[in-house]
Structures are given as structure tokens and as C-alpha cells.
């Protein structure tokens, strides 16, 4: 980012969002380790600046499809932390009534139309939402969040082609954390730059430091000027670092300790807070206060989720279209 003046209030909001995501995911990590949470968990620790920067560049009624590593986006978009936590704990008060869990949180009230357990599968959904917006003459945009692993799926290419051809109001936002599950980019992609691949579909593309929430925000805003003007889709590739494993419990034997240290050194929270202090936009007391607020909100959400009731087993068949005995 050029050394332009930073809006202090905005910067503190971004930091607060990142702290909220971090505190939430650390709590989820600990409760999962303590076996309070069933299933499996994918954390975005180290990638919070992407979620915070992206969400701050969107309107409240824009739509998002996110990934299996999607807690951050759901929180940044403004979902009720208690209902997010309740879903992850498998409780009836969760956004999906406990039917989806961590990997499938949808929060329609804040425009999160779904997370996906199948890599790449949500990309055409976002394009379809964009098609509906175009056809209905609405002014919102749809965003597909995906990782570098999804770029190797056929659906990425099919979706990019159609979106470009139909000039859909779609933002393709790639969180390039360098890993497709356990496999590094150098092993899974012939072309390491996702933005470069976008050129094949005449998609204007940006590459940005995904550890810097202001840079993510500014880049997404720039990309969205074209998208909102009806000129077609755009792609933003955020280069980021995944600190935890693919899933919680993944020992990451495929990463060297030096690499893990480097990932930790790119901690977006610490880097951003240091920068704000340098710029005189944040003092230690304010930083501590923001962190305390995040911890408090997370503690309340987790307590709510732990105390909430499990779904009634008698409700397991609700929302199933029919039972196969049919009219009988």
C-alpha cells in the first residue's frame, strides 16, 4: 500500500474483526481438542486479514459463498457469533439447526448462502446467484471465496468462462494459502499465480498481500467498481499463510519447522497492530481493550453454544422432502 493516510476508525474496526475471528477460532480449536465439538474443523488462523478486508469492502446485502475454511468470512460478514458457535457445537440454535456444522454454515440473514465441503463446488453457485442478480436487475454482487486448491477443479474454469462470457456481477476471491489440503502449490499447480490463470478468461485480476486487511479492502473495492458497473466479473488473489494444518489434528509433517515459523511470522494481527501503533493510530491500552472485547464476545458465544440444547432426534427427518414409501 502506498503511504497514504490511514482512516484510524476503519483500521481499528478491521483489527477488531480480525481479533474476533482469531479469538473465536482459538476457542474452537481448544474445545475441539477437548472433544466438546464433534466432526472435523478447518481453521483460518493466519488468514484473518482476507476475511476482514473482504467483508469491509462489501455491502451488507451482497452475497457470499465460502469454503470449508469459512468461519472467518461468516463472522466478518456480521453473523451472530452465538448462532455460529451453536452450529459448530451441533446445537438446535445453530444457523443450520445443527444439520451442517463447521463446514456448512449458511447464514442467509447476512448474505452467507453457504459454505461447502467439496472443494470448488460452490464456485458455480456464486455465479448462479450473480446471474439471478443480473436477471432481476438488482445492484448487489455475489462473491465466491475459494482456495488455491479449487483452481485445479474443472468447476473453476467452467465458472470463470461462463461468468466472463455473461458479464456476471461476480467477484472471484482466491485465498491462496499455498496449500491444497496437504499438497503445496508447487506440486499441485502448473501456474503458481491464480491471477495469471484468470487472464485466459479475460478476467481482470489483482494479486494482493492477504496479510494486510487494508490492502485487501482497497483491492476488492477497486475490483468491485467494474463488477458493480455491470462490466463483468473480476478476480482477486490474496496471498496468505495458513498456520494450522488442513484440519485440526493434522500434524503437518509435510511442512518444515522453518516454514511454520515463517507462517507464524506473517501473523496478520500482530503485523497490523504494530503498524497502527507505529502510525500512532493505536496505543497499547486500546489494543488490549479491543482484544478483551473480542475475548468477551467469544466467551459469551461459546457459553451459549455449550448450554444450548441438542436438536430433538425426532426432528431428524424435518426438511427431507418425502419418505420413499410415498403415498403409502
Amino acid at each position, binding site marked *: 500500500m502506498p503511504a497514504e493516510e490511514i482512516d484510524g476508525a476503519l483500521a481499528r474496526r478491521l483489527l477488531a474483526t480480525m481479533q474476533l475471528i482469531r479469538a473465536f477460532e482459538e476457542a474452537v480449536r481448544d474445545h475441539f481438542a477437548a472433544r466438546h465439538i464433534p466432526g472435523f474443523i478447518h481453521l483460518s488462523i493466519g488468514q484473518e486479514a482476507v476475511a476482514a478486508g473482504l467483508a469491509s469492502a462489501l455491502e451488507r446485502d451482497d452475497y457470499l459463498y465460502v469454503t470449508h475454511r469459512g468461519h472467518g468470512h461468516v463472522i466478518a460478514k456480521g453473523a451472530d457469533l452465538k448462532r455460529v458457535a451453536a452450529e459448530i457445537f451441533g446445537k438446535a440454535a445453530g444457523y443450520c439447526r445443527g*444439520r451442517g456444522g463447521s463446514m456448512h454454515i449458511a447464514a*442467509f440473514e447476512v448474505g452467507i448462502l453457504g459454505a461447502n465441503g467439496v472443494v470448488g463446488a460452490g464456485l458455480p453457485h456464486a455465479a*448462479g*446467484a*450473480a446471474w439471478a*442478480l443480473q436477471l432481476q436487475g438488482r445492484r448487489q454482487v455475489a462473491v465466491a471465496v475459494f482456495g488455491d486448491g479449487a483452481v485445479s477443479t474443472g468447476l473453476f474454469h467452467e465458472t470463470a468462462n*461462463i461468468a466472463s462470457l455473461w458479464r456476471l456481477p461476480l467477484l472471484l476471491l482466491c485465498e491462496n494459502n499455498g496449500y491444497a489440503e496437504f499438497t503445496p502449490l508447487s506440486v499441485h499447480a502448473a501456474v503458481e499465480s491464480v491471477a495469471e490463470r484468470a487472464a485466459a478468461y479475460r478476467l481482470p485480476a489483482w494479486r494482493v498481500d492477504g496479510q494486510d486487511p487494508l490492502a485487501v479492502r482497497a483491492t476488492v473495492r477497486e475490483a468491485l467498481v467494474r463488477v458493480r458497473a455491470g462490466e463483468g466479473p473480476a478476480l482477486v488473489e490474496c496471498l496468505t499463510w495458513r498456520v494450522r494444518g488442513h484440519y485440526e489434528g493434522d500434524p503437518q509433517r509435510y511442512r518444515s519447522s522453518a516454514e511454520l515459523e515463517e507462517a507464524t511470522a506473517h501473523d496478520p494481527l500482530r503485523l497490523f497492530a504494530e503498524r497502527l501503533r507505529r502510525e500512532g493510530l493505536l496505543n497499547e491500552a486500546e489494543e488490549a481493550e479491543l482484544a478483551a472485547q473480542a475475548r468477551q464476545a467469544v466467551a459469551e458465544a461459546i457459553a451459549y453454544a455449550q448450554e444450548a440444547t441438542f436438536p430433538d432426534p425426532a426432528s431428524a427427518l424435518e426438511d427431507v*422432502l418425502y419418505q420413499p414409501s410415498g*403415498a403409502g
Partner: protein
Amino acid sequence: MAEKRYVRAVNEALCEEMERDPAVCLLGVDVGAPGGPFGATRGLQERFGPQRVRDTPISEAAVVGLAIGAATLGLRPVVEIMFMDFLALVMDQLVNQAAKMRYMTGGQAKLPLVVRTQTGYRDSAGPQHAQSLEAWLTHVPGLKVVMPSGPCEAKGLLKAAIRDDNPVIVVENRTLYALAEEVPDDDYVLPLERAAIKREGRDVTIASIGVMVREALAAAEALAGRGISCEVIDLRSANPLDLQTVRTSLEKTNRLVIAHSATRCGGVGAELAAALGEEAFYMLDAPIMRVGAAFAPIPFSPPLERAIVPDRAAIIAAVERVLAP
């Protein structure tokens, strides 16, 4: 009421629903200006414009994915998958995505989505263009699957599918596209989960679906000449199955033959036979017989294809077996 070909009935259903509801849109390979390979969407792009009748690239999985996203935001997309065999390309979107959305989101998502596709035998379409794969779909909770057996069903079931708030797969039959029948001109809508009795009889019930309804009717006609009275049921829906209609018929006939185009192994007939084995065993005077394709790919060469696919002779043989003393 006028006589219409099956493919015309499909076209009319699409046209009427698009007139009635601006949320209804068509998507698919060649559906626009070309009007589809069989003419099912002919004239619709001209009438409703290229935004609502959209030609797509040969990207079936993405197209069904697009329909899912669009349906989530209130459109009612109708996707054409040119051949049923190509459903293999969209299984993740149908099975892991569309079928799960309502449930997985705790009821937040509503998915009014139709996939039209077609199958057919005896035209040397070959191993990759002639399969009846409906059992793949009926195994999955969250999908409805109907197989119109004639022009009336083609119109009535498709209109009902478009009005349904959930994913419905409509499996048409290309070898019936030219078949003409009296079809109501008015707003003709059939229920998606009800079987119909196509011919009344007292000795044997033939529960059939899709093109095999036609074969069953021909078999019943031939058997009537020999004094054997068959009741022919058009199941219409592969899932949910209308067990009640079949059970009521069995109360009278006590004998059942099931006929479908798909291979018998793991087919809709297997489910129907098993369900009736559980619920209607004591009504039966003979084992349930299933008629279906042999367990082989569908060959290209006409004599080979005839050796594999089921026909009225196979139904007649099955009826004779359930009547054998």
C-alpha cells in the same frame, strides 16, 4: 384438447410456465436459438429473450451449479442435460449440493430447480447415449424423479416440477418425442407423486415406468387376446414411489410384474419389489417378476441392442411366469 406430439407438449409446458412466472428460466447446451437437439425449446428464446433462455457452454456441472445459486435467489431454473448419460458429469452438483441444500442449511435454502433430461433405446445411440440411470438419483434423499410416459405426462409432470420448490429431475424419452396424443390445452398439471392406472385388469398387475408403460400396454393388449387380463400402472414417479396404487391393484390381481428400461440390478423395480415384499407379501400368489435391461452396456449394432433391452415380449414372458401354476 388437441393432438400433440410429446416434444410439443414439453415445449408447451415450458412456454406456459415462462408466461405464468417471470422467474422461470431455461439453461442448457443448445437450448437457445437451436431450440435443443430435439426441438423441445424451439421458439422459446425468440419469445422470452436470450437472458431467460440461455445457451451455455458444454459445462454441465457448472450449469447445474449455476441453477442452484440462481434458485437460491428466487429464480426457477430449468436445466436441460442433453442425454441422461451426461448426468454423470453433474452428480456432485445434484447429489452433494442440490439434494442437500434445504436440509443442510436448516431450511434456509429453498431450491426450485428442474433438470430435464432424456433417454431412449432402439436407435443405436450406443453405450454412452442410451442408459436409464434413474436409480442413481432415487437413492438420494432430497431429489424427486419423474419419467413421463406420454405427451400428457410430459406436459403435466413438467409443469408440476417447475412449480415445485425442490429439485426435480424429469426424465423424458426421445423415442416417444414424435408420439402424438390428445393433450389438454389448458393449465394441465399432474401431481408428481401419484401413479396412474392406464388399463384396468384383474389377473396380473404390470407396474411400469417411462417408455415401458407403452410396452406394457402393448403386452396387455396382446395378452387380452389370450384371455389374460392385465392391469397396467404408470408409476410416473421413480421416487417417491406410489406404493398405495400398486398395493390396491394387488388386492385384486395378487400378481405383479415390474417393467423399466434400466438394468434390473439395483433398479427402481428392486426397490418396489422389496417394499411390497415387506408390506404386501401375503397378498401375493406368485413371486414378483422384474423386467429390465440385461446387465450390460447398451450396444450400438441393432441386433445386439435388441438382445439387451427389454420389450413387450419380455413383459409377456414375465406375465406368463407369474400366472404359471
